[in-house]
């Protein structure tokens, strides 16, 4: 479990929020204005922009609460486990889909998946602090969730191996 010492001070949340907001505002403004000044500028600016947004959200994610007690730590730990698994599954699913000829791979989609999961984590964590979802406080949820995550990963792997075997006739 993450201890308070392994987290940044709660004041970093504000910096993270400012950073993410600035990145998001810049992203929207550039998109709306359809601004361009040289060939290929979009990729450079937008990738940096996405990194600013992700960095800001990670900063919020790893900042402690004003009063970081054991209940908050337990909620954070459970939420991080769930959303980390969700992010891996999302990226794996997308990478698997891009191996199909009809789907083109894009680095931006992976960034969007990461941003969506981080945003989902931040919203779910805030909500859980208020609502106390019972699945977090159950006595033995670890074994069940571990089984679900492992099962999903093995299913993905099996599906991918079958696809590769069929497609490339290995």
């Amino acid at each position: 479990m993450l201890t308070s010492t392994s987290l940044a001070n709660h004041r970093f949340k504000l910096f993270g929020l400012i950073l993410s907001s600035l990145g998001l505002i810049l992203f929207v403004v550039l998109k709306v204005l359809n601004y361009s000044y040289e060939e290929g500028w979009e990729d450079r600016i937008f990738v940096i922009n996405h990194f600013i947004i992700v960095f800001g959200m990670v900063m919020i994610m790893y900042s402690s609460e004003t009063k970081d007690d054991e209940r908050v730590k337990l909620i954070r730990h459970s939420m991080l486990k769930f959303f980390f698994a969700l992010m891996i599954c999302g990226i794996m699913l997308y990478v698997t889909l891009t191996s199909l000829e009809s789907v083109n791979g894009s680095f931006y989609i992976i960034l969007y998946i990461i941003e969506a999961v981080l945003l989902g984590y931040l919203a779910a964590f805030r909500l859980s602090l208020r609502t106390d979802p019972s699945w977090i406080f159950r006595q033995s949820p670890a074994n069940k969730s571990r089984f679900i995550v492992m099962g999903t990963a093995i299913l993905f792997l099996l599906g991918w191996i079958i696809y590769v075997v069929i497609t490339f006739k290995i």
Partner: protein
Amino acid sequence: MKNTIKVERAKKGLTQADLAEMVGVTRLTIHSIEAGKFKPSVLLAMKIATCFGVTVETLFELEEDD
């Protein structure tokens, strides 16, 4: 796990916020413990019991499914 925190709190005239301040947790944590949703650590249980001047066994009681 059943507990009598609410009763003990009423006896001492303490609010959830007062107790939370005394043991160094958030008010919502006290609320969750009282509602039986969150099971506190031994350390936190002992801190709460000390605040009321009772033993942990008096404050918390195991149930069949625990």
